[in-house]
């Protein structure tokens, strides 16, 4: 269970990291012209990189601090919510600060911002000055995809995603354990990415096939606009859909998990009080690899049934009702082989 939570947190970090790198890329693209102007006025690439680096660190530290503070308080709220959900005892509740989570957050954050910095430095050193200056005027390049392949991939992606969504919503009650959540999540990721990948090629093909509506009215300009920004749209829509899918699947499956746990609780603990003791204790015995020796009193007591022990300890037996006594016999010599003979081996 903890393992799966760790996996999910890494996954969320990766998705958010990609989102940050992407958003940063978007911002840098919008600022290319600014950097171009700095360069025509004689500022060096290294100095520009330094400016961006300082800006990124500054923004990074502020957002990390804000995120941590909000996160610490929001996590209290979340744990109250979860405790309520699983009907845990709230009287013992106190403020928790998870050092591990804090360190993890800082590490994820550092990795993300390192990626962003490397990315920015690369952007600045890679582009020619003329392209920096004209960057905002240029349209995004779109690669044409094989339309047949795109349609196939689209259908495939839709069916995977559809199945994954059904798994985490309609069929969620079969999600008995957290491990079962993994396949639908992976399917959801693959499906979403495939759909958007094929969709971009698909839309462009369709737009270009529709030359007759192309020149009729303003829809042509709208379509052109869409066409130009298709890459940006595909990436941001994929990320948004992925996050949405994660939220839906985690929320619905945690509710299902809670139901299962409560049902199991009732099934596994049909009585209020459950006492057991070992009868006829020997002088010494080994259980689970640990050697026990027994005192004379223990051996004597083990010859009596449980309720006699309770009465001997001056417990009022009237507080208990519907007492059921079950005896279980065991022998050290009893093995699979001598019980079933060789027929099942």
């Amino acid at each position, binding site marked *: 269970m903890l393992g799966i939570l760790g996996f999910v947190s890494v996954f969320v970090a990766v998705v958010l990291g990609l989102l940050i790198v992407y958003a940063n890329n978007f911002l840098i693209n919008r600022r290319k012209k600014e950097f171009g102007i700095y360069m*025509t*006025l*004689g500022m*060096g690439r290294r100095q520009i990189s330094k400016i961006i680096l300082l800006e990124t660190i500054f923004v990074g530290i502020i957002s990390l601090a804000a995120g941590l503070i909000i996160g610490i308080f929001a996590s209290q709220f979340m744990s109250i919510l979860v405790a309520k959900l699983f009907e845990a005892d709230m009287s013992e509740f106190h403020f928790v600060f998870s050092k591990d989570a804090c360190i993890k957050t800082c590490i994820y954050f550092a990795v993300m911002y390192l990626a962003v910095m490397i990315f920015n430095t690369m952007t600045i050193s890679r582009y020619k*000055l*003329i392209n920096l*200056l004209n960057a905002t005027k240029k349209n995004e390049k779109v690669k044409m995809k094989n339309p047949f392949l795109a349609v196939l991939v689209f259908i495939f992606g839709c069916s995977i995603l559809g199945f994954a969504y059904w798994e985490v919503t309609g069929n969620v009650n079969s999600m008995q354990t957290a491990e079962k959540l993994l396949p639908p999540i992976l399917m959801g990721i693959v499906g979403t990415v495939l759909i958007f990948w094929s969709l971009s090629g698909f839309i462009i093909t369709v737009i270009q096939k529709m030359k007759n509506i192309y020149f009729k009215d303003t829809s042509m300009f709208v379509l052109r606009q869409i066409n130009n920004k298709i890459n940006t749209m595909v990436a941001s829509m994929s990320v948004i859909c992925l996050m949405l899918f994660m939220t839906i699947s985690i929320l619905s499956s945690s509710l299902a998990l809670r139901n299962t746990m409560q049902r199991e609780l009732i099934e596994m603990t049909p009585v209020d009080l459950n006492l057991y003791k070992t009868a006829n204790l020997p002088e010494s015995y080994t259980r689970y690899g640990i050697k026990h020796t027994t005192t004379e009193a223990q051996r004597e007591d083990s010859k009596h049934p449980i309720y006699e022990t309770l009465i001997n300890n001056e417990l009022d037996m009237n507080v208990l009702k519907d007492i059921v006594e079950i005896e279980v016999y065991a022998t050290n010599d009893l093995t699979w082989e001598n019980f079933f003979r060789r027929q099942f081996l």
Partner: protein
Amino acid sequence: MERILEVKNIEKYYGNKSNLTKAIDNISFTVDKGEFVGIMGASGSGKTTLLNCISTIDRVTAGHIIVNKEDITRLRGNKLNKFRREELGFIFQDFNLLDTLTCYENIALALTIQKVSAKEIDKRVEQIAESLEIKEILKKYPYQVSGGQKQRVASARAIITNPKLVLADEPTGALDSKSARQLLENFEFLNKKLQATILMVTHDAFTASYANRILFIKDGKIFNELIKGNDTRKQFFEKIIEVQTLLGGDLNACF
């Protein structure tokens, strides 16, 4: 006369093999220190491309450009930055002002990059704003001022560093005749008093008549050259109109 700029057989191609545009097709010329050169030509003839190559914003496909005995097509790294910072002033056809900075900050930016002290910057910005009559708009942002005012702010940014070589792409394109005259007088001042060399692209014969010499470009090649010599500005203006008619481009200028 000291030779400040030498353009040797430069070519600039755009596109790929199947769709090639020869924006500059084997252009050579030289400019002496202190000259005021106009470049004229029809739209799309390659004027902006030529200026971009000289200003190291773009790279030539072939040929060499020598500024102050240094081949700037070979310049890299810090030397290139120093060249752009200290020798060059560039006025773009579309201004290229930063919308996030006020006009004052836009002009000051050129000096900030040179690490001039704040007090000195203040003095020089005030001075140049006075002579270009943009003092009232210094606190405004570029999107709050008119096209002509933007052009003057861009010009102020380019010439505030007293560059040795000023490259101006249509600096009077958005100006009325009064503001154009002010800017051109500033150029003249820069040219005569500070010995700056100016290379100015223009469509306008009146603006061009402020230059000492005019290069006419057609389809990426130099088509004609006019030297002012001892003519008055009016005589020069009439000659320019003649060549323009010959070029077949700007017939409207006759009427």
